[in-house]
């Protein structure tokens, strides 16, 4: 008799948990675009949607810095920086002319 009570208590807890968890998930989907459960998902093992980190570059005299950042608003991401070293992202300085 006692073990039946314990078993029923556990079973009731399972149903209550299923109901609570499912409601929480469905509510999160309709309100906050899944934001609530993501905190409970655990730690990320490998992220799939990370933007790739841009490589560091010196830019000096090179023509491959297009789209790689660095420089001022006028020159960033363009090849007009060729030979100037102005948009280096590796910490190197603009050469003195």
């Amino acid at each position: 008799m006692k073990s039946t009570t314990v078993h029923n208590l556990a079973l009731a807890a399972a149903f209550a948990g299923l109901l609570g968890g499912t409601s929480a998930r469905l509510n999160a989907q309709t309100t906050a675009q899944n934001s609530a459960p993501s905190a409970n998902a655990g730690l990320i093992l490998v992220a799939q949607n990370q933007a790739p980190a841009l490589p560091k570059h010196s830019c000096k005299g090179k023509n491959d810095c297009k789209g790689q950042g660095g420089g001022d608003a006028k020159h960033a991401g363009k090849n007009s920086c060729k030979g100037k070293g102005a948009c280096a992202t590796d910490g190197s300085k603009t050469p003195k002319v």
Partner: protein
Amino acid sequence: MTLLEFQRRMAEDVSRPLTAGFMMQEVGPDGSSVAESVANYVKPNGRLSSFERLEIYNRQYWFRLIAAVSEDFPALNAMLGPKRFDELILNYLEENPSTSFNLRDLGAQLPSWLEDHPEFTGAHLDLAVDVARLEWAYIEAFDRAAMPPLDETDLAALQPTSVLALQPHLQLLALRYAAEKVVLAVHKNKPDVDIVSSAVIERKTSRQVRLPKPRRSLTYLVVHRYQNSVYYRRIDRGAFLLLSAIREGKPLAIVVDKAFCQSGLLPSARAKKIRQYFVHAAELGWLIANPA
């Protein structure tokens, strides 16, 4: 020699295992000279003999397979070092050759195979096996199916005799070490690169990573996919047993008893834990209706 005979002959020679030094074998399985038999159907040129020409294909075939498996086990690679890892993979592939058009499945048997081959891991066998199991769990979690999770209609029909199932992408692991620390350390140091060059860079960086040395302790993990990323979550033994019982297809009435079958917890504390386990599993969509 017909075209079919030629194709079969070349496939056999190209897929023959390499020597320990990663070169084409000079003696065939029947004891005959490979150089002589290859000369019957491969022309030499000004710089390379028939044997040398075919050796290029033989080596590339195996290097591609080795690279495919290596990409799936970067932490194991970092842990063992490239030389011992390459040797391990070569031996693994000799015993577990590719049987599918899909290279994705090539490393599936590696964790269990490794368990029977301590000669490749030295004193770190258990940790190496745990790392391999976690890395394979990542592959499974990444691309196994995601089914619609339980909804209100499913819940309304639930009985104590009902059987639930887990998401196909969800992986349950009982490890002897906190292997996730090793895997995370390697991935943290892995640069973001395009897919073509990833194998080369991965092997370079694997050697440079300073790996943690986790202590031996029973670790229960769920590895699962959530919003296109793979997560791992530590769970306690009760949750592991409960989720394992669901995966085994046990009805709910049995599942709740499995979680604490050898526990001294008070009934009220058990009930509280069981409720928490189900709240969490249902919230993350881990539970699905039984597909059977």
